[in-house]
């Protein structure tokens, strides 16, 4: 182990241990099992109602698209549109407010920075139910109840801590020299942000935006209490399928599939930065 040892390429490939194949098969089986409820919902969405409620369950069946058209006739599109607008609008607002803040905290940290960050995070940790009552009372009084604007304003506030923490951690990873050079060149905040910082942290920005979209998309407590016919979102629409009477499994599955598919795809896209987002940058 002396320093003069010639560099011998040691094959560091893991030895195939007995049982590794078995463990691989177990992993595949577990992965399939974990994913199965999603898969089963997707399959049921294409079944006729009679097939959807059949016992024993039918794994092979004649596929139909009629459930999807029925769901769309039931006003699904309004809820879908609301969800897209609320998730998109609130994410944009959270980024507009959060990016400058993250920039400031990452590049000009002061002795107060840890306290500020800790306070920002603490706003995310108190239960939404503790803020719910005044929101209902005030929103009704000022005319924001059941409006898209009201929900965008709220969701933006709830996603702001995520944007600040996550983007701060991405910004802090940037090499300081690049920034110092451009500051010396006299570039202002906007130029540095749009020309240097954001292009270099684009994957992180995308992941942050996707996570913010996902949280707004799925949010239910505030949506069910603060929206009605005008600004109801998909979680509210889906929660209407509560009663287990009658044959509606296939339609329910079609509605569920449409509500969940975009989020799962977005989540898979954001996978690489998911842990950082979920732990507010504590785990990279």
């Amino acid at each position: 182990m002396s320093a003069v040892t010639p560099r011998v390429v040691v094959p560091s490939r893991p030895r195939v241990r007995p049982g590794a194949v078995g463990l691989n098969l177990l992993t595949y089986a577990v992965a399939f099992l974990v994913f199965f409820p999603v898969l089963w919902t997707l399959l049921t969405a294409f079944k006729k109602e009679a097939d959807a409620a059949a016992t024993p369950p039918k794994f092979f069946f004649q596929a139909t698209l009629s459930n999807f058209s029925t769901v769309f006739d039931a006003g699904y599109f309004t809820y879908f549109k609301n969800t897209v607008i609320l998730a998109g609008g609130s994410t944009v607002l959270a980024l507009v407010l959060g990016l400058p803040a993250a920039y400031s905290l990452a590049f000009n940290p002061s002795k107060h920075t840890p306290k500020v960050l800790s306070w920002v995070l603490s706003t995310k940790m108190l239960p939404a139910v503790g803020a719910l009552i005044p929101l209902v009372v005030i929103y009704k009084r000022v005319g924001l109840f059941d409006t898209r604007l009201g929900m965008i304003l709220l969701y933006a506030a709830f996603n702001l801590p995520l944007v600040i923490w996550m983007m701060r951690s991405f910004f802090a990873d940037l090499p300081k020299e690049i920034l110092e050079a451009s500051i010396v060149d006299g570039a202002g905040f906007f130029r540095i942000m749009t020309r240097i910082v954001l292009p270099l942290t684009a994957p992180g920005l995308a992941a942050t935006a996707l996570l913010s979209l996902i949280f707004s998309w799925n949010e239910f407590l505030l949506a069910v209490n603060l929206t009605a016919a005008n600004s109801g979102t998909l979680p509210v629409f889906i929660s209407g399928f509560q009663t287990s009477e009658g044959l509606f499994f296939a339609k329910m599955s079609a509605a569920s599939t449409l509500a969940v598919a975009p989020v799962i795809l977005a989540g898979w896209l954001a996978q690489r930065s998911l842990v950082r987002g979920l732990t507010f940058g504590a785990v990279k």
Partner: protein
Amino acid sequence: MATPATQVDAGRWAFLRSQRMASIALLLPALAYLALMTQAPFVLTLWYGFHRWILTSPELGHAWIGLENFRYELTQDPIFRTAIKNTLEITASIVGGSLVIGLGLALLLNRTFPLRGVARSLMIAPFFVMPTVNAVVQKNLFLNPIFGLVNWFWTTLGFHRVDWLAVHPKFSIIAMAVWQWAPFMMLILLAGLQGISEEVREAARIDGAGPVTEFRRITLPLLGPYVELAVLLGMIYILQLFGEIFVATQGGPGTETTTIPYYVYQTISQANDVGTSSAQGVLAIVFSSIIAALLLRLLTRTFRKGLTA
């Protein structure tokens, strides 16, 4: 083009002064917005909690009654007590269950094998499913006593049909949520497992440690901070569990699955009681704050470490 050093320094200081102002200007809008939208409501919740105020009885007005609402909730309201008990039981079970299963998933994924990315993607999918879809699908496609897949499987094994949501409501809710939260735990623990260097493991193996000893003496201790983080974060989120209960059991049967968030919802939306529901909300904040304080300390610690590293 040699610049005298003193000139550079003077320039740098001037730029720092303006920089300080600029950085506050960039930070302030976000902080003000957060304070307005998230902190102001909490203050109002506390204020409302001191009043008797029922939306459907405007003739009562909203009279200041001091701590009466809090006293009633903590000492007299039997449902609130049940709700506290249910919230703790359900949260602890979900956190525990998803932690154990998440650790299992993470250990399976923490190896090199073909299609690892696909397996990981499939395993994290449940976390993205919206809670109301989770509940509606599990309730109907899986737990329905007659048509559900679970009972088909159960009776195939030779057992009698079970109306899961009626007979085991808590367990059903816990199972639903564990399916959703195990991937969350898995992601954090997997990141922790990947941080354990192969050298440390190798050293343990050379010293004669078997797989079990390696797991107990190396993996678990080094995973400690990640477990702590996963548990605290999980608790913060899972304490707020609402969609599943709203859809699958509506707090029932009776008050079997009435948790604090669901009870607050009932008090405001069915009893229209602003004062009482606000007092309940304040108490919910108090419980969460205790956990949040622990979590913040942990995160600030990792943040400080990140600064000095």
